[in-house]
């Protein structure tokens, strides 16, 4: 029976990859869901926290795996393109932090609003943009999500407000905490604590590294940011807290970035290769999910490998597009300065060079 199923499965996977048919075959072999224990979150000003067990369905698991793998491979492709000088300027990669963006999105709705800083490619993807649009924006082409005009740090989508290049606003965060708490705004403040601010460790930069407590009067959670299920549950908990009218809440996701701060930073002058390797071998978010799914019969190793192959192809295709797509037309240099305005003229490098600006 098992041999026959395997044969059927092979035939089906050799043909058009329709998840429906695979599920039909697979559901005979795999569990529909499994229950997992997740780490208890540290709590600040909260009586109770997120649950310590969660149910993961096979469908969700496969989806999370695919999404995390896509973010991972997309970032690695960006690394490659940057070294080939096809991507220019600043490029801050989030490989290692996949559980944060994927787990977060799993805990909120597409109609919720999200904003982040410059390490934004993962969020841009989880908020709904395609790898094609993201890579083409990184390579500065007209098919990019910002038409090639924004680059790595300035990607936007529906209910996603970037991608922002200017940080250094420690004071502003406290102003935001104050107003959010004062007015009971339904806002989740998230700190992706990857242990370093550029080249400075948190110990050298923060009087208190318990970031989840830094909201003071705002309740907070400290979450294992390498475990996507932990992130998802914490996010669900935080979102419920906000939606019930209790006001803002803070989440500190303890995570890690494999790359340096940006492509200009080798990332090894302020931390050891051993440290990076240790995280990779013990806490890699994709590996953790994979092990869980395989060990509880939610998926097979082969099946996940298949997803890997599909993802690789998707990234390759996207990279091809991103490299071949033409740059934005010069005539559009002045476009989109103002919104909802009649067209006007924009001055170029001297008074005789003029560009048209339309909204």
């Amino acid at each position, binding site marked *: 029976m098992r041999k026959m199923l395997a044969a059927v499965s092979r035939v089906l996977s050799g043909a058009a990859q329709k998840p429906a048919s695979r599920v039909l075959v697979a559901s005979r072999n795999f569990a529909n869901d499994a229950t997992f224990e997740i780490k208890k979150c540290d709590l600040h000003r909260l009586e109770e926290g997120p649950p310590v067990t969660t149910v993961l369905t096979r469908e969700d698991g496969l989806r999370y795996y695919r999404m995390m793998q896509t973010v991972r491979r997309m970032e690695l492709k960006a690394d490659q393109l940057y070294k080939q000088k096809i991507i*220019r*300027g*600043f490029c801050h990669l989030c490989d290692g932090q996949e559980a944060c963006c994927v787990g977060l999105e799993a805990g909120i709705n597409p109609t919720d609003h999200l904003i982040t800083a410059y390490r934004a490619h993962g969020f841009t993807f989880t908020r709904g943009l395609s790898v094609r649009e993201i890579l083409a*924006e990184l390579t*500065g*082409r007209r098919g990019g999500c*910002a038409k*090639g*005009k*924004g*680059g*790595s*740090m*300035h990607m936007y989508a529906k209910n996603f407000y970037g991608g*922002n*290049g*200017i*940080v*250094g*606003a*420690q*004071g502003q965060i406290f102003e935001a905490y104050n107003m959010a708490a004062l007015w009971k705004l339904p806002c989740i403040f998230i700190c992706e604590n990857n242990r370093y*601010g*550029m*080249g*400075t460790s948190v110990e*050298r*930069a*923060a009087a208190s590294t318990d970031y989840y407590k830094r909201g003071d009067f705002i309740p907070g959670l400290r979450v294992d940011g390498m475990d996507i299920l932990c992130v998802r549950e914490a996010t669900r908990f935080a979102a419920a807290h906000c939606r019930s009218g209790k006001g803002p809440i803070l989440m500190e996701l303890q995570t890690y970035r494999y790359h340096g701060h940006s492509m200009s930073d080798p990332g090894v*002058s*302020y931390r050891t290769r051993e440290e990076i390797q240790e995280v990779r071998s013990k806490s890699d978010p994709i590996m953790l999910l994979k092990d869980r799914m395989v060990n509880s019969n939610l998926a097979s190793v082969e099946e996940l490998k298949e997803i890997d192959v599909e993802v690789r192809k998707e990234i390759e295709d996207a990279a091809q597009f991103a490299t071949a797509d033409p*740059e*934005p037309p*010069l005539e*559009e*240099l*002045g476009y989109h*300065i103002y919104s909802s305005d009649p067209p006007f003229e*924009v*001055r*170029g*490098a*001297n*008074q*005789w*060079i003029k*560009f048209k600006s339309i909204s």
Partner: protein
Amino acid sequence: MAAASGLMRRPLEQVTVREAINQGMDEELERDEKVFLLGEEVAQYDGAYKVSRGLWKKYGDKRIIDTPISEMGFAGIAVGAAMAGLRPICEFMTFNFSMQAIDQVINSAAKTYYMSGGLQPVPIVFRGPNGASAGVAAQHSQCFAAWYGHCPGLKVVSPWNSEDAKGLIKSAIRDNNPVVVLENELMYGVPFEFPSEAQSKDFLIPIGKAKIERQGTHITVVAHSRPVGHCLEAATVLSKEGIECEVINMRTIRPMDIETIEASVMKTNHLITVEGGWPQFGVGAEVCARIMEGPAFNFLDAPAVRVTGADVPMPYAKILEDNSIPQVKDIIFAIKKTLNI
């Protein structure tokens, strides 16, 4: 000594702008123990752009200080230190980030000596890279020469080559007023020949004095920072066509050395200005306005022309970025238009 400290010192050789700033700061740190450097990654990382390489190793934690990512906070701390009698060098990783702290620069530093009726000086230096780099897009490419140059109480300098960089940083540190030093990231790695005077530990370039980099008779070309190099390139090209440009390196934005520019215009009868920043209310606009107000106006045979960055937030795509900053061809075009050629 050079090898042990890791600092770069090569007599009569080429010195990069980065090395020149490093030398200047090193010499002033050595000369006066009240001088110290603070900013993000300036100490253990050797500087985000390696400008402060070796200084932490040489001077230690008390003189070279890594700050958290908090511009408003550490700029405020620096201003307070200056008021209390120290001589801080406050580095902004780029001047784009100084916008987070601009209230401290203007309201706490620039205006204080005036507001206090001459009681409270603020001997502080704000330095860092300014203007466009390569592919760093809208939020990281702004030129702040016009914004800071607008404010009485501030001095603003904009070095072009290594000699400028060293002489101006030293003068800035020794000046008892708040000085904004607008460096340029693309110039950091560019080597220049160092004149022998620049080797001296007391080599200073006076703030408020422009330099004529190239003598000419047909047109005055005024620029600051990286575009000075582009102007010299344009001048070389035009020289082959018999057009001799007088290229003036402003060196200081405020207080502006308009006299040098006036004397030149009175000789050449033609003027163009070149800058990386946006045209509206820019450095070139100020130069033109002052020329109109002074004796040189009557010597102009044609209206003055400005060559500037394009009036758009800096786009990322290369073709758009290239067309958003002044190129050599734009300078040549403007010169020929002005000369009616």
